[in-house]
C-alpha cells in the first residue's frame, strides 16, 4: 500500500472525526444535528486566518480567540434558531430548516466579509508542513500533530462524559423528564453544549486551515464528510467517529488514486449509504429504544 496515501487519509480522517465530534457534542443533550456545524468549522478557520495570518497574533492566542468567537456564535445560534423551535415542540424537526438557515446566513456573511479567496495559515512555531521521510512515508510534523491532537481531543471529550456534568448530559439524552426530576436543567446543558461544540468546531477549523486553506468553501464539504463520519461511527459515539473518520479518509484517498479526485465525494457517499443500508445506526451505534 502507498504509505503517502495512508498519511493523507489519516490526516484528513482526523479532521472529519473532529467535525463529527462537534456534531455529537451538540447532539447528545439536544438530539439536534446542527446543519450549520460545517460553517462553524469554516468560521473557525476564517477567524484563525484573520487573527494569525492577517493580524499576526501568536498562533495560540489566535486559535483561542477564534474558539471563543465561534463558541459565542454557536451559542447565539442555539438561542435564536434551536431553543425556540424545541420549545414549541420537543419532537418537531423544525430545527433542520432553522439550522440550515443559520448555515446560509453564516456562509454568506463570511462571503461578504472576507471575500472568496482562500487564506493560507501557517502552523504554530516548531511545526511545519514540510514533509520528511518516516518509515518510508512522506509526512510533515504538522500532520503528526493533527493526528495526535485529534486522538487526545477525542479522549479528552470522552473523559468529560465521565464527569458529573458529562453524566448529566448523557442523562438528558437518555430521559429528559427523569433528568429534570434530578434537578438537571436541559436548557442550560444544551446552551453549554453548543458553546463547547462551537469551540471544538473552531479548533477543527484552525487545525484544518494550514492543510486545506481557509475559505468559505470549507463549510459544505466538511458538513457532509463530518456527517458521514458521525453516521458511519454511530451518532453520539466519538470513538466510533474517530474510526469512521479514518475510514472516510481512506475511501477518499483510494477513490482519488484509482478514479480521480472528482469522484472522492461520490465514493464516500456510496460507501456511507452502503454501510447505513446494512447497519442503519452505524458501525458502532445502537438503536434508540422504541416508544409505544
Amino acid at each position, binding site marked *: 500500500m502507498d504509505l503517502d496515501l495512508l498519511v493523507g487519509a489519516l490526516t484528513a480522517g482526523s479532521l472529519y472525526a473532529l467535525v463529527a465530534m462537534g456534531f455529537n457534542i451538540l447532539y447528545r443533550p439536544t438530539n439536534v444535528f446542527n446543519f450549520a456545524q460545517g460553517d462553524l468549522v469554516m468560521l473557525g478557520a476564517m477567524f484563525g486566518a484573520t487573527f494569525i495570518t492577517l493580524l499576526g497574533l501568536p498562533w495560540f492566542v489566535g486559535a483561542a480567540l477564534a474558539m471563543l468567537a465561534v463558541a459565542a456564535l454557536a451559542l447565539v445560534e442555539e438561542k435564536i434558531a434551536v431553543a425556540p423551535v424545541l420549545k414549541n415542540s420537543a419532537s418537531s424537526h*423544525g430545527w433542520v430548516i432553522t439550522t440550515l*438557515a443559520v448555515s446560509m446566513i453564516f456562509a454568506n456573511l463570511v462571503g461578504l466579509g472576507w471575500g472568496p479567496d482562500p487564506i493560507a495559515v501557517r502552523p504554530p512555531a516548531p511545526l511545519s508542513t514540510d514533509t520528511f521521510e518516516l518509515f518510508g512515508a512522506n509526512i510533515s510534523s504538522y500532520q503528526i500533530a493533527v493526528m495526535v491532537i485529534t486522538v487526545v481531543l477525542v479522549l479528552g471529550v470522552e473523559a468529560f462524559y465521565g464527569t458529573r456534568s458529562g453524566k448529566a448530559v448523557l442523562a438528558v439524552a437518555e430521559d429528559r423528564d427523569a433528568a429534570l426530576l434530578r434537578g438537571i436543567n436541559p436548557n442550560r446543558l444544551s446552551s453549554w453544549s453548543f458553546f463547547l461544540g462551537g469551540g471544538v468546531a473552531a479548533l477543527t477549523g484552525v487545525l484544518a486551515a494550514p492543510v486545506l486553506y481557509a475559505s468559505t468553501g470549507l463549510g459544505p464539504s466538511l458538513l457532509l464528510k463530518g456527517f458521514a463520519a458521525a453516521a458511519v461511527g454511530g451518532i453520539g459515539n466519538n470513538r466510533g467517529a474517530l474510526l469512521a473518520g479514518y475510514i472516510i479518509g481512506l475511501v477518499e484517498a483510494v477513490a482519488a488514486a484509482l478514479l480521480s479526485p472528482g469522484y472522492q465525494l461520490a465514493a464516500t457517499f456510496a460507501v456511507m449509504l452502503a454501510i447505513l443500508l446494512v447497519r442503519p445506526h452505524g458501525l458502532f451505534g445502537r438503536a434508540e429504544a422504541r416508544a409505544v
Partner: protein
Amino acid sequence: MGDAARALIGSPRTRPALLFALALALYLAPFAVGTEYRLFIATQMAAYVLVAIGLNLLNGYGGQVSLGHGALVAIGAYTVALAMVDHQWSFWPATLLAMVAAAAVGAVMALPAFRLSTWYFALITLGFAEVVGGLLTEWRELTHGFAGVVGIPKPGVLGHTLTSFDLYWLALSLNILALLGMANLLRSRFGRALVAVRDNPVAATAAGVALVRIKMMAFVVSAAMAGLAGALFAVQKTVVTPDDFTADFSIFFLLMVVLGGAGRLWGPVVGAVVFFLVPELLTALQSWRMLIYGVALLLLMLYAPHGLVGAIETGWKRLRTRLGLSNIPPAPSTAIARETVHPIAGAALSVRDVEKRFGGVSALAGVSLDVAAGTTHAIVGPNGSGKTTLLNMISGFYPIDGGAILIDGRSVVGMAPHRIARSGVGRTFQTPRMLPQLSVLDNALLGAFPAERQGAAAAALSLPRARREQMASLGDALRYLDFVGLADRAMEPAGELPHGQQRLAEIARALVGRPRLLLLDEPAAGLSLAELDRLGELIAAIGALGTTVVIVEHHLELVANICRSVTVLERGAVLASGTPAEVFSHEEVIAAYMGSHSSVGQAAS
C-alpha cells in the same frame, strides 16, 4: 360588514368559479402580454412550481426535508438533453425516461435514510445534491463536462414544433394537472397516511400503514415531478450546463415551499410566485440574495411555519369568527344511508407461553391465554403486571422473546405491526393517538387504509373505481362515528375533542378497519361516570357485531359487565383465569390488587 360580504365569505361555492377564471386568464395571458422574455420567465416559473408541488408532498405533508430536489431536476434535464441530442430521441419518451431516472436514482439514495430519523434524510439528500453536482462536471463521457449539452431541440407534436407559446401552455397545463392530482391524492388514503406518518407514526402503524413504503411513495412521486420539471427546463433553455444546478438550486425549492406554506396545497404556487417576483425587485441587492433567503427561512420557520398561505388561513378564520361564522365545515353529504353496521367474523386468539424481557426485568414470563372467536375477553391485573406489554406483543409492536401467538391458528410472531394490523387486528392506546390537526372524520378514515385497494395513480386521477371506494370508506367512517356517538363532531379537529371523546374516536378509527380482533388498552381510564356507562354499552355493541375483543382494563365493574372471560396477570404471569364471577372471588386476585392478605375480607365485604 354587510350581509353580502358575509354571504361571499361564508359561501364555499364561489371558489371553483374563481379558480376556473384564474386558469382561463393564465391561458389567455400570452395574447395580451406575451413577449418572448416574459414567456421564458413564466415557463421557467411553471417548471419550478412543478418541483415545488412535488416537494410539498414530501416535505409539507410527509415531514421529510429534501435538500436534493435540485439534483433530481438536474437528472431530469440531463436525461432529456442527452437522449434528444446524443441519441435523437423525441421529447416525449425522453421525458418519460427523465421521470423514471429521477425517481429511480432518488429511491436508491433515499432507501437507507427512510429507516432513520428525519434529519438523516435531509443530510443524505444534501450529500446527494453535491455528488450529482460533482458528477455533472466530472463524468465527462456522459455529461460533456463543463460545456454541458447544447442544441436541445424543441419538442414536436405531429410534425409541429412547439413554439414558446406552446411550451408555456404545456407547462401551465402540467401545473394545473399536478395541482388537481395532488389535491386528489391528498384527499385519498395516501394523504391521510402521509400526515399520520409525519404526526403519529405509532397510530399510522396501528392503522396498517407501512411507514417506509408510504414515505417512499411520496418521494418517488415527488422525484418524478422534479424529473418532469427538469425535462421542461431542458427544452425551454435549449442548453444545460452544470452551472444551472448549483448547491443553492435545491435550497430554492425548499424556500418556495416554506415561504408559500408547507403542507398547504397552494403553498408552493404562492411561494414560487413570490420567489420569482422578489428578486426582480431586489436586483440591486444581488450579492445579498442568499443571505436574505437564509434570514427569510429562519424567520418563517420561527414565526410562520405554515408560510403565507397558513398566515392567510389564520386571518381568514379570525375574520369568520368575528362575523360569527363557524370555522367547522359542514359534514359531507353522502348518498349512503347510515344503515346499521355489518357484522364482522371474529378471530380466535391464542397466546402460548409468551416471554418478554426488558434489560434485567422480566415483563412477561410465560403467559398463555385463549380467546374464542367472537367473545370479549379482559386482561386485568395491577399496574406493571405486563398487560400493555402483552397487547404490544399481540399487535407486533414489541418483538417476542419466546412463545407463540396465533390469530385464527396463524402465527403472527415476527410479523411487522402494520402487517398484523392489515390481517385484521385493530387496537387503541392508553393515551389516544389521534392526529390532532385532522378532523375526527379524517382520523376515522385513516382506519380504512388497509381495506382500500386503490393505488397512488388511481387516487391522483380520481378514477371512478377509486371514487367509489372512497365513498364506501366515507360511508363506513360516518357510520362508525355514528356508532360511537360522534357523528355530530365529525368535522372538528380531533385535537379539540375532550379526552373521553378522543378515546371514542380512536375506537371508531379501529372499527373502520373492520377488525376481526380488537385490542382496547384501558379504554375507561380518565372517563367520567356518564362516559363510562356509554363505553360499556359501546363495547357490548362491538362484541355483538361479532368482533373478538380483548380489553385491558382496571375498572372491574366494566369488565364484569361486558366480558365472558378474564385473565388476571401479576408480575408477568397468569394468576387466574375464568369467568368474571370465578376470577373476582379468587382471594389471590384481590390480594394482588390490594397488596395485603389480611384485609381482603374487609374490602370485599
